[in-house]
């Protein structure tokens, strides 16, 4: 049976993937994390097409962590498609990126991002941030029920 995906992590840098997974490890979520390494793969996964056409559309992640600088399809474009489709719009998306440039923040919010976080350089802060946001979006926050899709 297909495992439930709690978190979809869209991140192209393998080191960032490793550090993020390490930070999420404490949350007992490591097994429920799907990693997509570029924008195209992320969209294929979410819309159950291309390389992920055998996925069932009912299995939706409860949280999407999205980096902005992605190969093939850019992070903002992925955000636009997620928020532009009724089948994925309600999934909370947290942009997790190095950039704090106003243009990126503005554009992300205009596209309907749920949260925008600049990855801290300091690893302790990074860990704390990941823990906090995982805790918030998956535990404190009420996820969208199935009927919302």
């Amino acid at each position, binding site marked *: 049976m297909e495992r439930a995906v709690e978190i979809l992590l869209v991140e192209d840098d393998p*080191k960032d993937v490793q550090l993020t997974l390490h930070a999420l490890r404490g949350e007992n979520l490591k097994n429920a994390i799907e990693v997509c390494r570029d924008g195209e793969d992320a969209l294929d996964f979410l819309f159950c097409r291309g390389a992920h056409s055998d996925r069932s559309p009912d299995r939706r992640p409860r949280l999407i962590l999205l980096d902005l600088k992605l190969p093939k399809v850019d992070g903002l474009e992925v955000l636009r498609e997620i928020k532009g489709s009724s089948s994925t719009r309600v999934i909370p998306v947290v942009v997790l990126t190095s950039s704090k440039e106003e243009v990126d923040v503005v554009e992300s919010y205009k596209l309907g991002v749920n949260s925008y976080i600049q*990855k801290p350089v*300091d*690893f302790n802060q990074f860990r704390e941030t990941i823990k906090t946001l995982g805790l918030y979006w998956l535990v404190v926050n009420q996820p969208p029920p199935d009927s919302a899709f």
Partner: protein
Amino acid sequence: MGTRLAHFEGDNEKIKEFEDAQRATLNMLEDFDTEKRRLEEVQSATLNLLEDFDAERKRLEGVQRATINILDDFNSERMHSEESQRALLNILEDIDVEKSKVAEFNQQLGAVNKELEASNKELEAFTYSVAHDLRAPLRHADGFSKMLAEELGTQLKPDAQGYLADIQDSIGTMGRLIDDLLSLARIGRQEPKLQTTGLSSLVAEALSELKPEMAKREIEWRIAPLPFVDCDPGLMKQVFLNLLSNAIKYTRPRQPAVIEVGQTTSEGGPVIFVRDNGVGFNMKHADRLFGVFQRLHRKEDFEGTGVGLATVQRIIHKHGGRIWAEAELDKGATFYFCLGELEK
């Protein structure tokens, strides 16, 4: 003629003939005289006519000369106006040439402006990718060095643990350097958007943002009323943030710290100052005060990247103003600035 005629004796017929002849001659002489007088009259009338004719001729000659003069004047007037016309045409040609030169200059200016815009955009793209591209490996280095410390932790000798701590320290510094450089670059790109602003409200905002830095500190604030000036409020708030943050930092050894904000007047307008009773600095190093990454204190005594004052100076200069400082080692420092006259 009462000439007594000779009375001849004798021949009455001959005398009669003679008298007749005499009479005829007299008549003829009279006629001749009359005729002479008539001719004289005719002559004098003719002479008068000739005189009149001459006068008329002279008058006509005068008119002719006058007409010729008028024609001459007219001709020279015409030549003058032809000259003026030629001169005007030349001026118009020159204006045209000037105009086309100006148009050419404007075109060149437009081209230079386009180049500048392109170059600015390149710079923006560059700084943007610096932010992203430099931060990522830093984050990785910090992450893995901390994970290493956690994995090996207790197995490491104190020296080795120290090395790892130093690595993380350097990473933190580099991260702050990047952030500071980026904000300096961002400010360098901005043109101040001027509006009449109350400096006192900017100081109040800055102070509330600096609350975390004031935690557990004993600071005596002396804030005088400040004027309204034409400035970019966002940029000027940054000025106060940096100057006040420095004042808070360098008064750390003082209890209480005394920090003053006020104004003095000069002919150019209001001069704002921020004064503290902190550690001050040696005035002989004052020329390095506003340099990028230049510091006058050791890192271990006071943290900082040396961009705060460079940023402040850049902002003040963008407002057409001036900033300078006076200080004495261990007595404190005062930073003065004035804003210039700028077109709104």
